[in-house]
């Protein structure tokens, strides 16, 4: 078991939370969707694992490089 921080690659705001904590995810599964530059940009699980925690709520602003979720890989 290893905690892994998932960072947002872009700045924007949280448009929609997709995965719930506790869900098992495959690499590439969307965790949440950001709105950035008027586009819907998914933040995806970089590796397979269980979603431990979402660090943001819908409509929260997000900076580039901000940790938005924690995975248990």
């Amino acid at each position, binding site marked *: 078991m290893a905690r892994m921080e998932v960072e947002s*690659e*872009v700045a924007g705001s949280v448009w929609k939370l997709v995965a719930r904590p506790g869900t098992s995810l495959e690499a590439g599964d969307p965790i949440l969707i950001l*709105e*950035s*530059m*008027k*586009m*819907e*940009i998914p933040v995806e699980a970089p590796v397979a694992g269980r979603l431990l925690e979402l660090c943001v709520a819908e409509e929260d602003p997000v900076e580039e490089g901000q940790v938005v979720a924690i995975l248990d890989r």
Partner: protein
Amino acid sequence: MSWQEEADEIRRRREHALAQGGPEGISRQHDQGRWTVRERVEHVLDPGSFREFGRATATAEYGPGGELTGYAPANYVLGFGMVDGRRVVVGGEDFTLKGGSPNAAGLRKSVYAEHLAVQHRLPLIRLLEGGGGSVRGSGRPGGTVGEPVHTEPRFRIIAEALGQIPVVSAALGAVAGFPAGRLVASHFSVMVKGRSQVMAGGPALVERALGRPVTKEELGGHAVHIRSGVVDNLAQDEEDALLQMRRFLSYFPASVWQLPPRQDFDDPVDRCEDALLDAVPRNRRQPFDMRGIMRLVVDSGSFFELARGYGRDQIAALARLAGQPVMLLGNDCKFYAGAMSAAGAQKVRRYIELADTFHLPIVNFVDEPGFMIGPKAESEGTIRYGMAAVSAAATASVPWASVQVHKTFGVAGAAHYGPDAYLLLWPSAESGALPVEGGVAVAYRKELAAAEDPDALRAQLENDLRAGRSPFPRAESFAAHEIIDPRETRPFLCEWVEWIQGRLAILPGPVRFSFRP
């Protein structure tokens, strides 16, 4: 009397040269998971093709009777070899001797590498590991100091090489100072994950100057330089780095006096991929995979991306179309909608100029919403770097094809169309001065402020304007050469490749600008 004694001495010295830094130096290198420079040379070249230059170069010590008492080979290995049957020059520091920091004989050979490659109009491969100069020995009293005033600047040939021959460099360990400078004075650079660090000055210098302890990896590891743009590509290990250098060279001529080598290909030129028809979502808010589109269009297996971690709003890759090497450019809408950032603009300019220098046609897959905006973008000087990219496109000499996949807005859009560009529109193409959403907010500010239902008015205005931006009227007005079914993209581009052969034939020779690091 024969010369047998001297012949034996020549043989002994050659054996010394091959012994490098001796078993200890070699095993130290291997223990760190690294190849020696001679192993690297063997791996980057076609097997058995290395022909060494200056094997007798060494630092020798002689006793009072003139007998040899010490012999250290030059710690720079240099020579000719073949890559995929094409001749190149290759050189690299021997880290088993004096930590790669140049000894006197090694320095003479290393600064000759560029001369050798330029003289023979051959690509240069640099295998870099080691530090720059040392203060040891520089403070001796007496004798002459400094270079004579009439000395040719050492860096001139390094600069001139970039305008004449392909130069590829790999950082295969820590490189600092001059070797780091040589790494970036290249058309392609690669570093090895976790094994290479690139620094102007290492941790000891930093701590002394800035009072801050820092590791080599923190200073100049891949996490820093794949983002900074100092290094183009990341390799998983040394072998991967050397293969990437070979692959890069396969798209390039030996020098600017030749054309890129067209290869045999077996991918049908009339291949139409159904996946292209729905590659761009009708919902404009949803991003799509531009790299996937590019891969479906070019010759199968020929897509080789450059600088993926830098200027991520823009995509640059080498590829082939009907066997013809081309430079691919495009936007990645997953990264700030593909809006051109300061870094993205520098990337676009660099690769337009690279293609121009070596006569590679440019194929641009356009989805450009404009220059990146906002306080960060302004403070980074986006508009200046952006205009440099636009200027590079506007003055390009190579044949250029633009496939307008989706958006082309603003001044930044002009960085994606060279002179006399062959212009193909997809049905999803949309262009104008500003994207509809932002444009409505600016142009109809008063009307929106006075409206009873501003949201309804905004939606109506946006819909009306969007309808006027359909690509069909542009095709009717001959504002593009063709509007095409996206599936037809490969056949159209492969045919274009045949048309441009006459234009390419007259391009060999240096371009009017200097390619700079």
